[in-house]
């Protein structure tokens, strides 16, 4: 039983990261019906930017660890959000009226472009975050030993998701985003600036993805330029699992995917854990084609 709970916490910690990245996929899909394949690479960009800023500015040394990290997270979020907005401008907006397939191809191209840019800038070798930024303490809760950093990562992702949920549900802008997601033409008729909404979506989604990259870098300590692929794939799966286009769905999907993986590894086979996770995805999609919390059928792609 103790092992079960240990695996549960392992799964939730990984799932929190998946959920944070999945939000970016699901928000863009909700508004544009476009899978932003470059999202995984924006996540990678966040991890690398975090590393550069951390080593060049020495923030945690000057401002103390907590304030330093907070400022670092804000900087990374800002830079990656800007990159996301630029990406929208350069790769997606010109194709707004084109068939959807063109936009998907453009997204794939953007992904390859970003990945190779990162590789050329930083090199193909593995980069390592400086050690000892975060305290390496494990907390004992009822016989479970959970590293403090894992709890921190999980709490930060929950906070970010909660803030996003409130933003979408309670603010004027959030309402505009929801309206644009339901029907762009009608939203435009109601006086909503849809282009602005899309821009905001492309600021928030990549921003969250960038922070997820920073969290992965800080916690796992090791980044390489292809890391976005695995995380992007898992987060995309999580978004579909929860119902793509649905924000609480992405959170639930991410957490569930993390837990399924951990349980699959624990009780069936470590080597088969991905196969198990994808099998669960297929079963859920057969039973509920819209995903766990999804409302609309994803009609294309």
């Amino acid at each position, binding site marked *: 039983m103790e*092992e079960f709970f*240990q*695996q549960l916490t*392992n*799964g939730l*910690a*990984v799932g929190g990261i998946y959920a944070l990245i999945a939000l970016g996929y699901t928000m863009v899909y909700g508004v544009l019906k476009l899978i932003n394949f470059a999202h995984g690479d924006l996540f990678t960009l966040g991890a690398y930017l975090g590393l550069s800023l951390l080593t060049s500015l020495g923030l945690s040394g000057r401002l103390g660890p907590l304030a330093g990290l907070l400022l670092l997270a804000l900087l990374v979020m800002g830079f990656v959000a800007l990159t996301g907005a630029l990406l929208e401008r350069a790769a997606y907006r010109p194709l707004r009226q084109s068939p959807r397939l063109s936009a998907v191809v453009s997204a794939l191209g953007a992904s390859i472009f970003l990945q190779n840019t990162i590789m050329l800038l930083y090199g193909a*070798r*593995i980069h*390592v975050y400086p*050690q*000892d930024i975060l305290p*390496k303490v*494990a907390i004992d809760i009822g016989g479970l*030993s959970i*590293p403090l*950093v*894992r709890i921190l990562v999980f709490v930060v992702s929950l906070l970010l998701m909660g803030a996003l949920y409130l933003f979408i549900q309670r603010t004027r802008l959030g309402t505009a985003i929801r309206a644009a997601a339901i029907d762009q033409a009608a939203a435009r008729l109601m006086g909503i600036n849809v282009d602005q909404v899309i821009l905001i979506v492309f600021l928030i989604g990549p921003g969250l993805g960038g922070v997820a990259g920073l969290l*992965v870098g800080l916690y*796992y*300590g*090791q980044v*390489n330029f*292809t*890391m976005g*692929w*695995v995380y992007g794939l898992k987060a995309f799966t999580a978004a579909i699992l929860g119902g793509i286009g649905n924000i609480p769905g992405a959170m639930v999907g991410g957490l569930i995917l993390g837990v399924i*993986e*951990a349980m699959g*590894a*624990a009780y069936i*086979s*470590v*080597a088969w*854990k*991905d196969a198990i996770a994808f099998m669960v995805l297929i079963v859920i999609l057969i039973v509920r084609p819209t995903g766990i919390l999804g409302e609309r059928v994803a009609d294309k792609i």
Partner: protein
Amino acid sequence: MKRTVVWGLTWVMVLAGAGLGLADSIKIGLMAPVTGSWASEGEDMKHIVNLLAAELNAKGGLLGQQVEVVLEDDGGDPRTASLAAQRLATQGVKAVIGTYGSSVTEASQSIYDESSILQVANGSTAIRLTEKGLKYFFRTCPRDDEQGRVAAQTIQKMGFKKVAILHDNTSYAKGLADEGNALLKKDGVQIVFFDALTPGERDFTAILTKLKAAKPDVVFFTGYFPELGLILRQKKEMNWPVPFIGGDATNNPDLVKIAGKDAAAGYYFLSPPVPQDLPYEKTKAFLKSYTAKHGAAPGSIWAVLAGDGFLTVTEAIKTTKTTDPTKLAAFLHGGKQKISGLTGEIGFNAKGDRVGEVYRVYRVDAGGNFVLQAK
């Protein structure tokens, strides 16, 4: 006209034959990748063999004759290698040292065998090379399955009774894991865990939690360093003190960077020794003169093993007092040969594989250095 050509050719052949017969040097071929992607290995091989030949000639050579090293470039490419082998075969070499890559060696094997030329490969570890029953083929490097054998021995020598094995499903890592698994089981060691992780992932806590529940005395990891670094780091965070032992794919300084010094400390791995760690006085002296001449020590053990190939051939010629490849091969296969090489004592089994252990155990110390362990 025709007649003249025929006569001319005959004379050339007679002269060439006489030239070979009267030659006052023993020709030894060296086939090395001096160009191509393994060029640094090839350069080191060339320098080492030439230096050893110069030392030997300074002491009077072999059987009263000078030794001449004939270099041919294989480019690290099988097709280039077969041409290089044909050129060497027509130049009257008695033996050939080389080469580095397994597929490159394989392309040249039958050419040397048909020409009855002794071949001593230095970096070709693929198992099948010595499973073909070739009479003139030897190698100074270990085979891919030797690492598994040494790992099984080391684990038992350290007194571990319950072993967990973790690989990553690549052909190298799976092969090593299977080999170790079979050998340990045969010796009655309990294998409490045998599974694979997914390379490229970052979170291995689920695997570690499962491993911990299996309560192993030691974990044998056969994969590569990026995953291992993360595993050691996450293991440290879990406060789980189980020792890890790994294969030569974890022999990379980046391992310590990823894991952090405190998490990497105490990790054991198997690897052929780096040249600077070779404990023999003779080797140290040789490396010293090598460094004096070329500015740096050879980069890897594989080039040093080419030097061992040269010592094998010359020592065999010296002992048997002949350059007849059949007699030399019989002598080397005999199992009585004790040749002192740069990487220790050299001997061969009936297949032409090197007998004895090239693999050594390394341990990461508190400062993150890889320290060679006493046998």
